[in-house]
């Protein structure tokens, strides 16, 4: 067998084992008018820049160091194609499957949701590589010019490729989440606008980063590595979100997402400690790192918590059946499973870890820092209170009517928070000249309280005990539900082939 025949065989084997969605999408893309038009426009624009550049460049083409400037023009065209058009095409691709009811056909095959998501992503990658290959001859031309920095160009192309993949994953997750058909045109416009804005923003960041980036600067490499890890964590998160939205209703759609959120949190703090340990000369653990990381962590758990605590408590038989046999492992796994009560436990555990980290980082703040331990403790208490309210509301309201959704509970909780923030300023309604310094009534406003505490406020000795009592009350209200939620997992006994009817109105079932 000749080398050619062996290569053909190898290609056939690869094609045979390739993701079916990738094969389909590639076949469709290569035949689609949209792709051909985009490809031709990319080539035409590159030819135009090449021709105009050569015409207007004059002697500078031969004697000037204009390689990088020339490349920049081609790069902008490429960036528009791979950071706007490719992710938008990935977004439309999944949406079109839903529109044309082909998604139903797809979802009843043996393809897993993860395969579908990765198939869509890989076909986006193929498109990106085709656009790269189209622009390659022009970049090869610029490489002949003086001032062309091979390393920097290679770096920019790699970074752009990774950003294109991240954008495509975000786009796929967004289309997986889009349920309402009537909003599709609107969400498509929004997505396109968002991608254009994001591309312009990224271009400016990449531009400024490249201008200041030095290959021998260790701090720049550390920053880049840290940024890449954060981007990778968000890539994973959006992949989980897309997969969860495409997963069959009775399957576990929650634990993957919750694990990624935990991973992101641990990665942030693990990364900070690792950098402090690995690169002590370029990175030190001080106020400028700890305070932003702490605030970011609280925002993270506030946002994650709002979704976790308002989750539907229903746990399907399929999920229960796949629980680990060992009770200790079940106990550890329980907070990651669907359900607002378990979600509250999940957030509480992470808030406890965050508070412990805050205590551990106090010695690194330095004696001049105004940031005291009171601030993270107050933040923890506020989150425990508001998320506790949301969890209780979800438990009480979701059972009342199927018209009440988790989204309504989140909005209601945010309204309560907004009222709490505004109430201390109510005297301004009848006295516009009223000037209010911090007093105990402003406890309702978390932001004013944080500011007061971080400014070594005089009410700290009152604020913390009051917030502590509030947090204990919130815990007490949800304690029984949390206990039930965990016990349901730890002591679950699943009989095979049981018909379980839940949320069925009285009298609707036979024998009732």
């Amino acid at each position, binding site marked *: 067998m000749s080398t050619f025949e062996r290569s053909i065989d190898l290609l056939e084997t690869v094609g045979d084992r390739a993701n079916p969605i990738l094969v389909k999408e590639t076949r469709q893309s290569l035949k689609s008018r949209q792709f051909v038009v985009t490809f031709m426009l990319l080539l035409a624009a590159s030819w135009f820049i090449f021709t105009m550049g050569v015409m207007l460049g004059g002697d500078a083409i031969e004697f000037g160091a204009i390689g990088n400037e020339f490349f920049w023009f081609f790069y902008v065209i490429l960036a528009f194609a791979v950071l706007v058009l490719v992710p938008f095409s990935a977004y439309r691709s999944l949406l079109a499957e839903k529109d044309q009811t082909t998604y139903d056909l797809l979802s009843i095959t043996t393809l897993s949701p993860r395969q579908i998501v990765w198939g869509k992503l890989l076909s986006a990658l193929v498109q990106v590589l085709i656009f790269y290959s189209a622009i390659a001859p022009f970049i090869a031309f610029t490489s002949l010019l003086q001032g062309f920095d091979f390393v920097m160009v290679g770096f920019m192309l790699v970074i752009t490729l990774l950003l294109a993949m991240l954008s495509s994953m975000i786009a796929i997750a967004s289309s997986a989440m889009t349920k309402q058909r009537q909003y599709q045109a609107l969400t498509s416009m929004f997505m396109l606008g968002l991608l254009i804005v994001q591309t312009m923003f990224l271009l400016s960041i990449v531009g400024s980063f490249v201008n200041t980036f030095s290959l021998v600067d260790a701090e720049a490499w550390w920053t880049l590595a840290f940024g890449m890890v954060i981007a990778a964590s968000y890539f994973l998160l959006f992949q989980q979100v897309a997969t969860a939205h495409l997963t069959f209703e009775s399957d576990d759609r929650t634990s993957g997402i919750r694990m990624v959120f935990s991973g992101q949190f641990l990665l942030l703090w693990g990364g900070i400690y690792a950098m402090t340990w690995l690169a002590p000369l370029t990175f030190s653990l001080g106020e400028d790192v700890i305070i932003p990381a702490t605030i970011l962590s609280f925002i993270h758990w506030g946002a994650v918590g709002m979704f976790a605590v308002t989750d539907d408590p229903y746990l399907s038989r399929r999920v229960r059946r796949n629980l680990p046999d060992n009770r200790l492992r079940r106990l550890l796994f329980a907070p990651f499973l669907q359900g607002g009560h378990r979600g509250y436990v999940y957030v509480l555990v992470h808030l406890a870890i965050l508070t412990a980290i805050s205590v551990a980082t106090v010695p690194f703040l330095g004696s001049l820092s105004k940031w005291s331990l009171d601030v993270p403790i107050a933040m923890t208490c506020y989150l425990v209170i508001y998320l506790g309210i949301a969890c209780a509301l979800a438990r009480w309201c979701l059972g009342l009517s199927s018209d009440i959704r988790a989204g309504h509970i989140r909005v209601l909780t945010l309204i309560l928070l907004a009222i709490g923030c505004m109430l201390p300023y109510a005297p301004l309604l009848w006295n516009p000249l009223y000037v209010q310094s911090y007093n105990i009534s402003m406890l309702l406003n978390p932001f004013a309280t944080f500011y007061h505490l971080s400014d070594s406020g005089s009410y700290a000795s009152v604020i913390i005990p009051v917030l502590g009592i509030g947090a204990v009350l919130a815990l007490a209200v949800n304690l029984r539900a949390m206990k039930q939620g965990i016990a349901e997992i730890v002591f679950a006994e699943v009989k095979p082939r049981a018909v379980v009817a839940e949320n069925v109105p009285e009298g609707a*079932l036979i024998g009732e």
Partner: protein
Amino acid sequence: MSEIAVTVDEQPQPPSNGRGEPTLEIRNLHRFFGKLKAVNNVSFRAYAGQVMGFIGPNGAGKTTTMRILATLDTPTAGDAFICGHSVIDDPDRVRRVLGFMPDSFGRYPNMDVVEYLDFFARAYGFRGAARRDAVERVLVFTELRKLAEKPISALSKGMSQRLCLGRTLIHDPEVLVLDEPAAGLDPRARVEVRELIALLASEMKKTVLISSHILTELGEICDSAAIIEAGEILAHGTIEEIQSQRKRRRVLAPVEGVVNEGGAETDEDEPHTTILAARVLSGVEQLERWLLEQPFVSEVNMGPQQVSFTFAGDAAAQCDLLKRIVENKFELLEFTGKTQSLEDAFMAITEGITQ
């Protein structure tokens, strides 16, 4: 909020009629959308080689039930089993043994027939020669071989339905759930699709659950049927059993103060009735008047040279009636039992309730 757990094995089991384990089984299936009870306590079974019609007016709950069977939706309560696998617990296994043909044909743009089938063969995990064989088998069965390179957007409705059926068969499933497979087809295409379905059950021993509005066609290919209205099964069984049911099984209102316990009127409560027709050379009006005076006779309808009527007597009484018609000098040309069609049964059983 109520939680009720019923072990399926404790449920009363209908007889299997010597056909082994059912390949399709629905048990106490419920699907509610808010207050709307789209599917309300539906139960039935189908066996290998059986073609079961699933009949009901628009909005009766047919498509919802079929979507649950196809693992596209989950029930509010109850369960369904395909070859013993639960659609809730084992959707992955169900997908391997079930082929679902929805009422709308999902077309992929920029794809030809063979690429379409090849994609679904890949999606069902076929590799290499097995994939090529699966595609070839389907192309031959659906007689689409000569259209293999044609773009699917250029296919006629009939050919599209064939392709859709082909896609349903690509992984050689044991159970087929077909939602309105003949909708919108011309008479020739309808006959062709019908023949393919009949072949699948008789030759390949597939279980076929088929919904259609064209009841005459269903009557020809189905050996059993389930009639659903407003989310509830009104009648099910073989075509003969359903045809013998003239009245609704449910009594919606008590008659003359008599309350039927459990709200159900069983087959035993209802006398056996037959529709008979007598064709005469002349004297149709006299025959109609005479028949109205005879015992067991009701619902007499007069047509040109023919009188049809409902007869509630047994075979001996029927024989006696014929003897008396002849004795009364009616010029009788023909005396036949009129077979009640599935359409007649459907019209008699359903009330046209929409939700």
